[in-house]
């Protein structure tokens, strides 16, 4: 009698737990969006110019993937939400860094030309 009750309670508890873990459907759309953001960051040069936030995004996606495999969709979703801002920061940082380099290069070429003009005017 007692054993039956215990088994029943356990079954209920197990069911509740499984339900709480496998909450809703897997966040496939979020995963796809995050991976797109990571690809955009990589295309912007984040591998060279913003490796830290890019790595942070990639690690969170990996964790999210493992959580999805274990059907822990809610936790996976919140990791993806963080990963996507990491990826966006990586893209923005890489773009900013590249623009700084482009500006330096431009300024150098202008300086060079100005020096050439000064030299020409001295002669």
């Amino acid at each position, binding site marked *: 009698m007692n054993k039956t009750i215990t088994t029943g309670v356990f079954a209920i508890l197990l069911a509740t737990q499984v339900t709480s873990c496998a909450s809703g459907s897997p966040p496939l759309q979020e995963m796809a969006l995050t991976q797109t953001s990571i690809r955009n960051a990589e295309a912007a040069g984040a591998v060279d110019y913003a490796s830290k936030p890019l790595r942070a995004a990639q690690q969170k996606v990996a964790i999210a993937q493992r959580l999805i495999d274990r059907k822990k969709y809610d936790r996976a979703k919140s990791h993806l939400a963080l990963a996507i801002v990491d990826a966006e*920061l990586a893209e*923005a940082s890489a*773009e*900013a860094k590249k*623009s700084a380099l*482009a*500006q330096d290069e*431009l300024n150098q070429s202008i300086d060079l030309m100005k020096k*050439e003009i000064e030299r020409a005017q001295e002669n």
Partner: protein
Amino acid sequence: MKEILNITSIKTNIAIAISCTLLTTGCAGKKPNANLDSARSVYERVSSSDVVNEYSTEDLNVAKLKLDDAVDAWHDKKPKGEINNRAYIAEKYALIAEQRSTLLQHQAQIENGKLERTNAQMDLRANEADAAKREALDMTARAEQLQQEVELREQKLQAQLAEISELKALQAQNTDRGMVLTLGDVLFDTGESTLRAGAINNIEQVARFLKKYPDRTLQIEGHTDSTGDDDFNFNLSTERALAVRSVLQEKGIDGSRIVARGLGENAPIASNSVAEGRQRNRRVEIIFNQTEDTVVSGIDE
């Protein structure tokens, strides 16, 4: 009186104590969250940046909304993980706003830089054009100078050729000492230094030539044959040379242009053993010195 004061102060103290308790209660249950504090301080730093306010106010607004989300979660006493996640997102959005403003600022500066570069390129080309123009002018000037030099030389050559042909008209001979005009023995009385009338005409022509060409100087050399005393011959040749010089001076030629000397019998041009040779040796030679810038010394026959 003193008691009353005491009572008042006690009341005040109580009031303060109560309000303190109320304040503390208001904070109670909302434990400070380090992630939220970090997000807030990043947002404050970013939002006070001039660059961000100039270039990425929209991104800054998004960051503000995300920060408000996080603060709301904290006010609503949501689970710590939820607050942390929202704080994390808020902080990253603030950083994104900062990076975007940097990008936009650089892009604006690059546009200005391109304009500056175009101007510099134009300056550089203008300079190069100026330099090329100067060089062309220099070369033109040099070419003109060379042309003038050539023309001047040509004129000099023509002038000297004219001189030489005039000297040839005077019966002057082209020798390695220059043009030499020989006045023969027949122009002097035998053993005398007086010029005969026929010689005067010859010397007048020389005077006219010297007036026309004031740079020309002369040497006049008197010579005799070997007949007779050396001293007599030397004196006779000297006197004859001086006589020619005197006539030229009478015709208005400055004496300083003329050196006259006698060489006696020491420089024969023919054999003294025959009468014809002796006659040729008795002579006065007028040597026209070459000028410093002589281009041609004579015309080859």
